[in-house]
């Protein structure tokens, strides 16, 4: 079984649009949406949820005020400023380390489990899908990503699928790292803007750090063809394949409004080069992956 993650560094370059198109082109794949704090894939794939799993993130300190003597030791020892001046826990700051509970001389503090989201196992018109929703204001998105990854592998085994297509989050931090560890390849979706180039280089750095092979897709390549050449040169110099270039087009937005993948939308109503190019890109990605 192979795993492929679409990443970008910079947000809004077209990861989800391309991942959804790949999902419709793949013949035997599981789809995983690992952008758990701003998940959008379900808006196109309309998954029917088969199973819901509660997600418990980090524990959180709970202070029993009837036992608390306001000594302030918890506040003094908390490195995350999570205890307020009036000795209350600030949920947004608490990282669940447990130092306060250990240090409290009155045993007034316990660490409690808290539901921080839900993970879903679903069915879509293109096959099984693993996805999730982080609760409002919760941390531990990396842990939830890990749960979605685990669920996607279970689905692949259960249904005999040989590929997992993972839609990753933007950035280079914990959820991104959780989305790419142990995958066979990442496909970086970039755009020829100075921000796109800068973020491409950083995210390729992360992939390199974990020894994960990478290919690059250039989206909206015609908004600045000079920058597109800079990306192509950079990739050539670093031995990274550019697997395809897509033009700026209204098709992704129009397809999204109709809750369709680009392949379904243009395939039915508007035969065009955009979907052909995406198909070619998919072919190149699969050749690189295998």
């Amino acid at each position: 079984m192979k795993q492929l993650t679409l990443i970008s560094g910079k947000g809004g370059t077209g990861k989800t649009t391309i991942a959804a198109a790949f999902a419709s082109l793949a013949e035997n794949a599981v789809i995983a949406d690992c952008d758990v704090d701003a998940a959008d894939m379900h808006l196109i794939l309309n998954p029917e949820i088969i199973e819901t799993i509660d997600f418990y993130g980090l524990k959180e300190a709970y202070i029993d005020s009837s036992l608390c003597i306001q000594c302030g030791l918890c506040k003094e020892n908390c490195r995350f400023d999570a205890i307020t001046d009036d000795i209350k826990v600030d949920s947004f700051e608490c990282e669940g380390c447990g130092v306060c509970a250990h240090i409290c001389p009155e045993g007034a503090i316990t660490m409690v489990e808290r539901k921080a989201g839900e993970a879903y196992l679903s069915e879509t018109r293109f096959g099984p899908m693993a996805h999730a929703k982080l609760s409002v204001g919760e941390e531990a998105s990396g842990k939830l990503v890990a749960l979605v990854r685990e669920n996607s592998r279970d689905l692949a085994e259960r249904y005999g699928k040989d590929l997992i297509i993972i839609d990753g989050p933007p950035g280079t931090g914990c959820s991104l790292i959780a989305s790419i560890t142990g995958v066979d390849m990442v496909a970086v979706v970039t755009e020829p803007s100075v921000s796109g180039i800068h973020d491409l280089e950083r995210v390729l750095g992360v992939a390199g750090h974990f020894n994960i092979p990478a290919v690059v897709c250039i989206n909206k390549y015609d908004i600045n063809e000079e920058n597109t050449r800079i990306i192509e040169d950079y990739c050539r110099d670093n031995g990274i394949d550019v697997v395809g270039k897509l033009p700026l087009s209204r098709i992704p937005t129009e397809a999204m409004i109709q809750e369709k993948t680009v392949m379904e939308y243009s395939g039915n109503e508007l035969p065009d080069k955009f979907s052909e190019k995406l198909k070619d890109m998919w072919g190149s990605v699969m050749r690189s992956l295998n």
Partner: protein
Amino acid sequence: MKIAIASGKGGTGKTTVAVNFAISLKDAQLFDCDVEEPNCNLFLGYDLEKVEDVNVLNPVIDKEKCDFCGKCSEFCQFNALAVLPEDVMIFPTLCHGCGGCSIVCPNEAISEVGRKVGVIEGSVNEGLVFYQGMLNIGELMTSLVIKVLQDHIDTNGIAIIDAPPGTACSFIASVKNVDYCILVTESTPFGFHDLKLAVDVIRTLGIQFGVVINRCNIGDNSVEDYCIEEGIPVLMKIPYDREIARLYSQGIPFVNEMPEWKERFVKLFRDVTSLYEMGNCSEQ
């Protein structure tokens, strides 16, 4: 006054709004809190100097004193230590620096040493006071870098904060202590969906906010209809314009080439200030 520019969905134009907004105001400070992918300076082109390193305190084991009892690894919630029969393994990137291991160690065998996970850089000699944080490649402590960065805000002045995408911890760390939050979105199904997630978080935090609709002539009317229904002020609309897109791709702030927009951003600031003051009055 601290104003955050945030979005939920990535790529909606946060950095564009933050940079052009800050340039249009006199005496603004700009803070790039998207420390995983800081981009503001690509548009400013300032010479930045290192202000400070961001360090996490990691445990160091004194093997003379350690009797491999395992209390530290038992305590650690982040799996950053593993105790073997005759060794202790430390996984530095997993350590949050809570100090719990050194507190629970019965033999005083654990001390702590700072490990660099990022850097704060800044410039105070250019047109704007500008600071950015940068998380090192392969590191996880995004929120810590954002917190250290925000310590440099002069709260007597105007501070514009460019927040990271998403709605999780790094987003919260960036917007938690601001006076007003501007949510930048686009009127596509993805933009609309992620806007609603961001609104949920901002309301939970109890922060006043309004919306800027970018590329307002692309997509549908769902965002504006929603804002009217929810009583959320639409502060500004920026159309999709090939010229703005071209300038963006080259790293040029569009207010520098299209000065009429400078006035619009100044008006945006006036509007935000009066909304903020009105909000404060109505709370009292």
